């Protein structure tokens, strides 16, 4: 994916002036939802880690093995701020889209966890799915207001767990790994949206 470092303020300002619901409001809502999404993923990740300490730590897969690693994302502030709004939104949407299927898998395996806190985990996973869905819808609406570039979504293939008959430890480890990947990606989404929000609210510095 080619990086577009050109900031195109014209597109954003045009959008801001012509929309019925201000883009700033939409971005604000999206930011809040992504914030909540990341908080949920963090707590879920910590819940899983607390109940499977030793083994998990030893065999924790490297994050570079996340299926979303293929998507090139900025790695520091400078790079991030250089991205255009459309690019930022496109990245956020791509990441979010890439997690829709895996969340289903996570939900399935969370329900069959040999885990004392299974119910809590299941509930949180379900909440996660709901928030993801609503955020996806919101970003969809936003993207329509921001031009074609914002609407492009990079497809990130997700390979399901190969062995359905994984032993329980393995499935647990896999679950932990997935959750760690999701935690990071949700943080990326949140960061991109908040940068976008601040850029759109030039007249409302209190948003930043």
């Amino acid at each position, binding site marked *: 994916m080619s990086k577009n470092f050109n900031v195109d303020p014209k597109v954003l300002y045009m959008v801001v002036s012509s929309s019925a619901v201000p883009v700033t409001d939409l971005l604000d809502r999206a930011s809040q939802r992504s914030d909540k999404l990341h908080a949920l993923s963090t707590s879920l990740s910590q819940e899983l880690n607390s109940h499977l300490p030793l083994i998990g730590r030893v065999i924790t897969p490297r994050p*570079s093995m996340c299926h979303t690693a293929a998507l090139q*994302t900025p790695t*520091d*502030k400078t790079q991030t701020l250089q991205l255009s709004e459309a690019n930022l939104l496109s990245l956020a949407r791509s990441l979010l889209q890439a997690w829709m299927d895996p969340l289903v898998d996570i939900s399935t395996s969370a329900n069959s966890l040999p885990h004392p806190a299974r119910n809590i985990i299941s509930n949180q996973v379900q909440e996660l799915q709901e928030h993801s869905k609503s955020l996806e819808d919101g970003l969809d609406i936003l993207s329509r207001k921001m031009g074609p570039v914002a609407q492009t979504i990079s497809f990130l293939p997700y390979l399901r767990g190969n062995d359905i008959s994984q032993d329980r430890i393995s499935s647990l480890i896999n679950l932990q790994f997935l959750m760690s990947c999701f935690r*990071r990606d949700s943080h990326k989404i949140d960061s991109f949206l*908040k*940068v976008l929000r601040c*850029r759109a609210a030039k007249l409302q510095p209190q948003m930043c």
Partner: protein
Amino acid sequence: MKEVMEEAVLLFLLLVIYTPDAQGTRYSPPGKPELTRCRSPEKETFTCWWKPGSDGGLPTTHALYYRKENSDTIYECSDYHTAGENSCFFNKNDTSIWVNYNITVVASNALGSTFSDPVDIDVVYIVKPNPPEKVTVTVMELKEWPFLRVSWEPPHKADTRSGWITLIYELRVKLEGDDEWEMHLAGQQKLFNIFSLRSGGTYHVQVRCKPDHGFWSEWSSTSHIEIPDYLHREKSMWILIAVFSAFIFLILTWSLHMSSHRSLKHCILPPVPGPKIKGFDKQLLKNGKSEDLLRVLVVSDFPPTTPSNYEDMLVEYLEVYVPQEQEVLLEESKDLHDSCLKFEGSTSDNDSGRVSCDSHTLLMDKCGEAKEEGRQTDQEDSTTEAEAQGQQKDWDQDTLMYANGDILSPEKSSGRVKTWPSVFSPLPQYTLSLPDQTSSLEMAKQHCYSDSLFCPGSTSSYLTHLGNNDNETLGPGSWEICLSNRQPYSHIPQMQTCQQVRSHSDVNISTIARKQEPAGLPLPFFRPTAYVEVQRFDEEDMVVLQSIVSDHGFHEGFPQMLQQEDYSKVKGVDSNNMLLLQTEAMKEDGDGTTPHKPTAHIHTVVSTQDEMAQPASGYVDTATIFTLPTY
């Protein structure tokens, strides 16, 4: 020589080194260092601190090595000093976010080196900003009430303008000397008002911040602010206290004054006056017997209490008493009467004094029946008459009031005609034949008039049958003429149009109270009721009727037709048992013209049964007569 010296020194050194027991020290490789924490203040740089282990008695050095994910290159920390001792500072160039760092610290001394446990961190998860800066606290006033306004700025390193970091703030306040702080969450704003201030004193204020997914910063340095005492606020309270105490002082003075002149008790609690009701016995009250009380309260000569129906008060009637009356279905009549009364009562006629008996409200059927049936009651009559009499006094003004006390006593003597002595001479007794029962009922029905309704059969005057029972009880019969304009009397069948009839002699009038079916006869206007007084009874068996014009007249401006026509003459009874009334042409100057011919008014009102030989008691409804057109 030199070689010996060197060997001696070496030996000495060895001795020194390898005699630990004697000296208690032992050199060892350094202990394992430990990474305590890594923090990033702005998501652009970060610092890691470690805790060194034992140094093993030898100078040890530490080194930090890290590796980024996806890469196997090992880097060493480039800045060990910026962040202080045992720290490593990663500058912007070395910092990548959303990248896992694998960090290890190595302690090494002369005897070896020890590696710490590796730590994986992601910079975005370890953000802890610096405290907010430039915290200013000012005292401001809102409607003479002071409050604190606290404002601050984000730490200068945190880039909140671009949205790279989103910070939320929290502040805390306490009075100098207090132990507990008052916390306030301020969100993303950089301005906050504190209203929960107490009296004057010195307040301490502190602020801190936190990124959206990170750690709280340290508290800012304390800002001190002094609140001056607000005397004028308390002044109002003092004024209130002064007024209140003055008030109390006044009360005390007054009470002392009163007590010196009079008993205070007497002043505050004056004696309760006793009841002063004439004829009221306090003892009764004290006895507490309610019955006695009530009896006392009821004055004997109080005018008779309201009758069961107020309609009774309006009832006047001339009751002609039939000696051989039998108890006709009194109850039935009464019921009917009551129902009639009630019905009548429901619709109030403003002009109760109207002479005309036409009543809007009379229920034809029921009333008619009641009329016929109720006539019998002797005892009832007495009481009712008494009542009526009493009521009639009230209605004296009313033109209808012709009844008087003499009527009140129905006697069993046969054929006593009760009239209104004040007005008329006593009438001789006469008898009327009783019509057939059913027909009487019918007739009664038909005789019901109302102002607006066209009562079937209300064509002509009629004599209603009295006592419509199987027994032809009415021997001599009696006329019962309803005077009531509205409310029929219980035992008197209702007659809308009432006539004053005076029977002059004891003559059997085989009159029939039966009205013709005036089918289709419209009653074009109000039928002014005419009162006819039976003046005399001719040898010819004629009842001379004298119309009586009441002074009160027909208020509504009825055409004074009554004055013009006089149906005072009973011509006779024809074969059909019809009472023929005849008017005497006495034209008076009236307001209107009467369309009726005198002759026309000679109507026989009612036809009795053929069987009824005896004259039926009934009503002569002259009013109806004259109102009806000729036919």
